[in-house]
């Protein structure tokens, strides 16, 4: 903000030209006066080497009013949020479209599998039935179930599932923590 201009106060030459130049005279005072149309404030920069001018302190940037700062902050923040929201919306939208398509595809696949299951079940049961019919015919040589041709085994008494030695240890509550 602002221009630093090396001006020579000693030169009394005044430029009376009315050409508008955006040269700003910096005075010693900290206040900068802008006189855009006054002819006197614009001076020609001498071409001849001169004694260096005093280095004046640059004015501090003018403080923006608090309200404006706040608004700028809000604007920047909302821009970021908006960007984020738009990106999220796009992602969510594309995700829903993708999901929809995936679900539809999987559903059709599932339906196909169910129809196939039905077909396999039907074929399997039909086969089973015809096998049973064939087995029933005397030519097949199968005998009906009869106890005299059957061996009945009585089930063995249930055995303990784990070795006996392990059980008492597991059951006994530990009186206190054991160190190793």
């Amino acid at each position, binding site marked *: 903000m602002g221009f630093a201009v090396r001006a020579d106060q000693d030169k009394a030459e005044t430029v009376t030209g009315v050409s508008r130049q955006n040269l700003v005279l910096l005075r010693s005072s900290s206040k900068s006066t802008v006189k855009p149309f006054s002819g006197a404030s614009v001076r020609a920069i001498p071409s001849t080497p001169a004694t260096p001018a005093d280095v004046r302190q640059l004015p501090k940037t003018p403080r923006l009013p608090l309200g404006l700062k706040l608004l700028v902050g809000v604007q920047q923040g909302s821009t970021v949020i908006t960007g984020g929201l738009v990106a999220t919306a796009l992602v969510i939208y594309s995700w829903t479209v993708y999901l*929809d*398509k995936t*679900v*539809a595809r999987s*559903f*059709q696949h599932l339906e196909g599998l*169910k*129809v196939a299951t*039905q*077909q396999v*079940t*039907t074929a*399997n*049961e*039909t086969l*089973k*039935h015809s096998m*049973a019919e064939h087995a*029933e015919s005397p030519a097949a040589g199968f005998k*009906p*179930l*009869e*106890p*005299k041709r*059957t061996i*009945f085994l*009585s089930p063995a008494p249930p055995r303990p599932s784990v070795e006996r030695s392990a059980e008492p240890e597991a059951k006994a509550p530990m009186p206190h923590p054991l160190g190793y």
Partner: protein
Amino acid sequence: MVQPSFDPALRQPTRRPRYLSSPRFRLVTVWGLMVLAMVGLSTRLARLQLVMGDQLKTQAQEQRQNLPQVPQASRRPIIDRQGNVLAVDRVVYTIYAHPMLFGRSREEMAQALAGVLGKSSASLLSRFNEQETGIQVAVDVSEELAERLRGLRLDGLELLPSQQRFYPQQALMSQLVGYINLEGEPQAGLEYALQEKLLYELEDVPLPHAFHQQPSRDGLRLQLTVDSRLQRIAQRNLEATVQRHGAKQGAVIVMDSRDGAVLSLAVTPTYDPNRYYEADVEQFRNWAVSNLYEPGSTFKPINVAIALEAGLIVPDEYIYDEGRLQYDQWTIQNVDYTAVGGRGSITITDILRHSSNVGMVHIMERLKRSDYYDWLEKLGLGDPSGIELPAEAAAQLKSRPQFVNSAVEAATTAFGQGFSLNPMQQIQLHAALANGGKLVTPHVVRGLVDQDGEPTWQPERPAAKQVFSRETTQAVVEMMEAVVESGSGEPAQVPNYRIGGKTGTAQKANEYGEYGDGRLVSFVGILPVENPRYVVLAVIDEPLGEDAYGSTVAAPLVKSVIESLVVMAGVPPAAE
């Protein structure tokens, strides 16, 4: 917006009013129009969505339903005890040909179709030449064949899918399962009785552009308590018996008395539910449930149990059997009176062993007739047994005044005549003898089971009512064992097994209410006697021949079923 200021006096006078050409006015106008349009659109949207939304939704659904889909409601499969499928849906196709749309010559089309469908190409060609469109080429075409036809990519063919119920076991289970007619409506059996449970619920299909509802095939199946293997054996033996004796109809029921589960319900005559339209209408009724008959002597053990439970007799008591009794104009005599005459003083076991009518009358005379009637009501005579099968006929008793005031009524009831019940109820009463006195509800349905076989729904059944004590029933079952060991039930003996049984040969009342020549023979077996569990009942209606009795017709049939039952159920032979 900066508005350059100028002196109005300097402006040239114009014909149009000044504000019309001002940019601000134009902007405001355009903005206003756009806002108006937006407000209009929003109003319309709100109206469509909020006010007319429901109405439009139903309208859309109605339109969608007109779309050709697989038309009929589909149903859950029915499986037996082991998971064998008894009824399942399948998709079949009806194939129409439209010769005007054929992409190839009719000869080629006939050739191609004949190869896939197994028909003669000449007959197909002649049909193609008859009509330009809408020729029904084949019905009930399976999915595989339809897929092959689609693979041929022939123009002018139309494949219309439809849902069909398929019964792989054919006639074996038809009396239980029933059938679905061509319109997709259940007509008989469990298909009819449990139609709500069998129908799939509708679900929304998640397909874009094709939104509709279709049945959610959730994997639930209706499981029965019936064992297909036992059913097959019972059915085959029953049919052989019925054929051998020229009988009208027959039934074999096997029940697990502990919970009333029916393991086998073989009925003849039967029909193939896949071709129900070829069957006789009479066959759609399961007569083992919807016909009543007079049980005859198979009811005697129940009467003995009543008398024992009421404390009127003790198991080793002697009863005098004179062989013949006279009630007014009615004569009651033993079936073998002409051959044997009166037996004199015999035990209760002997009364059952020789099936003595007179002995039974003397036992039941000790019970007050009104108490006797109370007992029969307590046993559920007069009420249906509660089985899931449709059209069950409730047992018929005489009215209470008629029963109480007439001595002959109680006397005939003592040997199982004068009242009627269905075979299912008969086996229910005998199950009470086998399970220690509980009146269980006979049932053929286990419930809806999921993929792992865990039931998700089971029919509600009343709690079993205790009607006899365990001592009473065990005493009666041991008396029945004597019948099989050395009595009328000898033909039912299975070596090394202790079986209790009772034969029955009842005269059938004809259409005039008189006893005619027709007989109904039956045999009930209970096993094993040391720990009674299974009950087997065979009933054969109107067997021909003079020697057709429960002992000659029904007992050998029960024996053949018991032989397979003990192997399948793993009942070991009795310890010596």
